[in-house]
Every structure is written in structure tokens, then in C-alpha cells.
């Protein structure tokens, strides 16, 4: 348990994929955490607390991720970051609760309900509500659903069917695809047969590139609305012009002062890769944790208490309104701004 509160040293565990297919995303999160910590140490707003972070590779695999929770717990960590994908978060739920270890998770699934797991990415349901807003704004009625068969797509698909089903949108078609499939055009063709006004696509990063490429190959001009992951810079790099007409949402506004300073600092720290929601959410989560240390205390119990009661955390880069952690999912639908890919760049809409 958090006997650390006496000493000035606190341990924070980070279990993210640093190897394998999604290691790039894992490293983006890590950069966000590191940047925030560096600033905190420089600006001295950590006071006498010194935060030590233990970064471990969970290979995005539940069987590896769960032992890491006990590892951190045993080492006396007072909080942890983890779970790039929802299954990992679900697997860890039991362990974090047993250890009383609060965790910031990046998985977006709605089935993550554990009182110790705080989802710093917008839940699927929130992102999907935003899809409805999008349709309303462009007065689209007929929606085609396109999701991958992996963790991201499948967890979103249930929500899509449910929420869009209740909305006044008409689901004309629903197709799935393998994230690493050699070719996606057949599914797109059969989706086009239903001629939807637009396609709601939920997946992670690079498959968006494959899809827009496929869309170009079959000569289909339909607009596609993706989730936050559609903003992955790889999409622009790979698809270039073909990505035009692909919309995505991001919790990262560009109007708030916090977001602007973050953008500057990030550009200074990591000139090679542009700021995306991954870096930003991780950065914000670390900010929250630091607040918890200062205002709550540096024991697990204290951190958990503080987080579970935090109703309005100001000055974060992500989200329009202050974070309310009582439902453990601070980013809501209208915290998400829309952006659009244009010739390899993203523009606000």
C-alpha cells in the first residue's frame, strides 16, 4: 500500500506497448508523460515530491499487462498509466482494484467500468454521439458503418449499432474489415451498394489509410467520419490526397491557452513528430496526477480519493470543459472538435 507518502519519492508505473505493431502509439503516450514531468520538475510545481516513472512494455497483451499491475503495486507505485487497448484495461481491472491502484487507461471501450480506471480518451459512446452531430450539421441521413474486426472496431461496433440505431439516422449498411487485410476494396464496394450519405468508420490509426486508398481505387467520393484515431499522422503520410474527405475528431482544441502552450512545448521537445491526441491526453493525465499528488497526497489511497472526487480540473489541453472525473470519463461528445484531412494535412472544420 502507499506507505510512500512520508518520503518525497513517489513511483508511477506505465505499462504500454513499446514493442510490436502498436509500439509507435505507445511511445507517443510515453512522450506526453515525459514532457509533462520534465516541465513540472523545471517549473518546480512538484515541490519536494520527486516522481519516479517505471516504463514497462505490455506488448498490448493482457497476459503480460496484468502481472505488470502487481509488479507496480508491489513496488509501491501510487498510480499507473496503461491499457492502450480496451481488452488490456478489462484484464487489468481486477488487479488494480485488488491493489487499490488508480490507473489512467487509454482504451475507449464503454465496458471499462472499474472504479479505479480513469479513461482519458473519449469513450466510444461519446465519439459516436459526435458522429450524430456531424450528420445533423451536414444533414446526412443514411449512414454506413465500417469497423475493424480487432479490439478497437468490435468494441465500438456494439455502441454504433445501439446509439445510431436510436438516433434518427438510418443505418443502411454495416461492414467489417481485418486491420491487416491485404485489400479492403471488396467490403467498400458492398458498402457502396447501399449508397450511404456518409460512412462512420471506427478503427485505429493506419487502417484509415488503407481504407481511403481503397475508396480511391473504387472511385468512391463518400465522406468518412473516423474516431479520434483517424487523426494519426500516418494516415496523411500514406494516403496523401486520397485522405481528402476523411473527417476525424480530436479532444485537442487549438483555441485554449493550455493547448497552445502544449503545442509550442511539444514542437520544441519533439520536432520530428507533430502533436496528436495521444501525446496530449497522456500529457493531461500526468497533469491531473501531479495535481492529485499536491492536493490529495502521495499515497494510493489519497490519489484515488482525490481523483474520484475531482469534479472540475481546469487548464487542460484536451476537452473544452474542465475535467470531471467522477464518472471516470472526462472527455464528452462536445469536447471533441472535428478536423478534416486535406492533401495530407489536417484542417479544422
Amino acid at each position, binding site marked *: 500500500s502507499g506507505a510512500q507518502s512520508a518520503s518525497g519519492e513517489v513511483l508511477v508505473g506505465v505499462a504500454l506497448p*513499446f*514493442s510490436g505493431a502498436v*509500439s509507435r502509439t505507445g511511445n507517443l503516450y510515453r512522450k506526453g508523460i515525459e514532457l509533462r514531468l520534465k516541465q513540472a520538475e523545471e517549473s518546480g510545481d512538484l515541490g519536494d515530491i520527486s516522481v519516479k516513472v517505471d516504463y*514497462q*512494455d505490455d506488448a*498490448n*497483451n*493482457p*497476459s503480460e499487462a*496484468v*502481472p505488470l499491475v*502487481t*509488479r507496480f*503495486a*508491489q513496488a509501491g507505485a501510487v498510480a499507473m498509466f496503461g491499457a492502450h*487497448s*480496451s*481488452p*488490456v484495461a*478489462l*484484464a487489468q*481491472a*481486477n*488487479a488494480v482494484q*485488488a491493489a487499490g491502484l488508480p490507473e489512467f487507461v487509454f482504451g475507449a*471501450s464503454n*465496458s471499462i467500468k472499474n472504479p479505479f480506471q480513469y479513461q482519458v480518451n473519449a469513450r466510444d459512446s461519446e465519439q459516436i454521439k459526435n458522429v450524430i452531430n456531424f450528420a445533423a450539421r451536414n444533414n446526412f441521413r443514411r449512414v454506413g458503418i465500417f469497423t475493424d*474486426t*480487432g*479490439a478497437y472496431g*468490435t*468494441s465500438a461496433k456494439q455502441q454504433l449499432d445501439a446509439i445510431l440505431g436510436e438516433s434518427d439516422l438510418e443505418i443502411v449498411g454495416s461492414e467489417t474489415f481485418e486491420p491487416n487485410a491485404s485489400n479492403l476494396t471488396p467490403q467498400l464496394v458492398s458498402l457502396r451498394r447501399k449508397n450511404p450519405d456518409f460512412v462512420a468508420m471506427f478503427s485505429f490509426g493506419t487502417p484509415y489509410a488503407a481504407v481511403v486508398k481503397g475508396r480511391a481505387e473504387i472511385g468512391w467520393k463518400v465522406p468518412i467520419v473516423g474516431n479520434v484515431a483517424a487523426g494519426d499522422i500516418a494516415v496523411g503520410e500514406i494516403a496523401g490526397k486520397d485522405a481528402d474527405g476523411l473527417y476525424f475528431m480530436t479532444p485537442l482544441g487549438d483555441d485554449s491557452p493550455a493547448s497552445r502552450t502544449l503545442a509550442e512545448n511539444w514542437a520544441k521537445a519533439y520536432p520530428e513528430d507533430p502533436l496528436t491526441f495521444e501525446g496530449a491526453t497522456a500529457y493531461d493525465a500526468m497533469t491531473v496526477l501531479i495535481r492529485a499528488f499536491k492536493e490529495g497526497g502521495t499515497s494510493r489511497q489519497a490519489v484515488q480519493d482525490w481523483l474520484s472526487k475531482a469534479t472540475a480540473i481546469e487548464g487542460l489541453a484536451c476537452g473544452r470543459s474542465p475535467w470531471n472525473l467522477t464518472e471516470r470519463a472526462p472527455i464528452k461528445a462536445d469536447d471533441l472538435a472535428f478536423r478534416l484531412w486535406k492533401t495530407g494535412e489536417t484542417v479544422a472544420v
Partner: protein
Amino acid sequence: MATTPGAPRVPWVTRQGVYLGEAAAIALGAILLAAVLGPHEAQIAAMTAIFALAGVGLNILVGYTGLVSLGHVVFFAIGAYGWARLTESGGVGLALVLPILVSLLVAALIVLVTLRVVGYYFGITTLAIGLLSVVLVQNATPITGGYAGISGIQQIAVPGFAGPGQVLVMSGLVLAVAYYLQSSLRESPLGAAMLATRFDVPASQSLGLSVSWIRLLAFMISSVPVTIAGAFLAQLVHYIGPDQMSMETSIRLIAIAIIGGRGWRWAPVLGAVVVVTLPELLRPLAEYRLVFYGVALAFVALFMPRGLNQIVTWASGRIHAARGSTG
């Protein structure tokens, strides 16, 4: 080499006592570890014991019969999901027995489908079966919970132990039993028959051994420990999902048998230590830890065909020699 003509010195042929002793040692070791280790170490130890248990199955299949299955994750899944679902609706007893029966059935089916397929083709067919089972797991949402998997799985409570320790004790005990049975199987007529079919089909047929039957038996026997291991994995992680049922898991299982020294009775245990425990100890290597794992796999498979057994026999040979020279 050869002995003096006339009276051949043929060794004491079975070592029942030895195996019993070793099995007991495994069981005691597990209990001891569960008592002294912290939760994290206990979790790793339990994971090792679980994979060792599964390794017993592959050791029998690969080591005795020479069949390479890249699809044994099927039985892993049956065990895990079986336990997860059946314990939800009460019956622990049922959750223990039913999956095993299902596995035996599936094993029999697989063998029937692949009866005429041999060598690499067999390996690839089982690989296909493994892939199919993953697709199945992903799509049979009512049973498997699809990609979200099943969380909050209960475990067998062992009085006097906490958390992972309980699983460690249970899997350790089962492992001990499996170890003993595996070792005596090796020396029983059936074990010898398996070995014969592994090396020379016509010869074994001329000895009256029906290759298909032996294959069937071997496959069914090997499926049981893997199934039980699956159930223990579900108990240890309290969650089960498709990501744990990937082809990579199947490969791990074979790797355990090969690295340990397929056919050797200690292969599952030592192999599991290398394949499961070592990577945890290698965490300092960060992203190069898998590179190391791969190198180990390739090296052992290509240059140490009898795996760790080779090292052990070599070492014991050295010891013998030393004794000889001194005394």
C-alpha cells in the same frame, strides 16, 4: 558402448520411485514458492507452472509422437472459456470436467480430419485450425464475449494462501501429477509405440502398431493438460480474451517442449522457465527482449536438438568424469 559378451549389463529399466520423488518435489516447490513469494513473483511463478503444465501436453505430442501442432491454443481456449463461463453459473466441478471432455472430442475430430496429412502439412493444417479457432472466439460473442472477452473470472480458493499464490499451489499440484504420468507414459508400451510411429511408420505397422490410433491417442492425451492449463490461466488473470489465444501462444507451447528438450521428462518445466520466466527477468533489455527470445529459439532449435537436456547430460557427464578421475 558394448558390454562383455555373454552377460549384458542391462540397467534397471524403470525409475518409478525417482519420478514419484521428483513429482513430490515439484508439488512441494510450488507450495513453498506460494508461501514465500510476493504477489508479483507468485504471479510469474504461477504463469510458469501453467505453461509448464501445457508444455507437458506438447512434450508428449512433439517429443514422443513427433507430431507438431501449431493449433493447441484451441484447447487452451476451451479450457479458459469453459472455466470462465461454467463457473459463472456455479458448478466448479462441471467447469473442471466438461472442458476436458470437449477437448478430447475436438482432438479426436482434428485427428480424423488430418488423418492422412503428415509432416509439414500436418503442422500447417493445425496452424489453420488454430487460426480458425481465433476467428471463432472473436465471433462467437454470446459464449466468448467477442473481443471484449470475459472479465472478473473466479478462481479456486486455497485456504492459507492469497491471490496468485492460490493458483500457483493448484497448478503446481496438477503439474506434479501430469509430470508423473508423462514420465511413466514414456516407459509404458504406449510410450514406446508413440516413439516407434514417430520414427518409422512401416516398421511400426509391421510391429502391429496402428499409426492412426497412436496418433489419435497421443493427440487426445496431449490436449488434456493444455485444457487444464487454460482454465488456470483464466483463474490467474481473471480475464480471458482473443488476444491471449493467438497463434503466438501455440508457438510458445511448442517452444517450451523444444527448448526443454522434447521427449525429456524435465522439458516442460525447464522449458517453461526459459520461455515464461526468463523474459520477465530480461525486462531491462526493454524492446530487445523479444529479439533475445528469438535468438534463443533459433539457437536451441538449430544447434541444441536436445535442448536443455543436452546441457544437463553434458554437465552430469563432466561430473561423472571428475568422480572417475578422483576416485
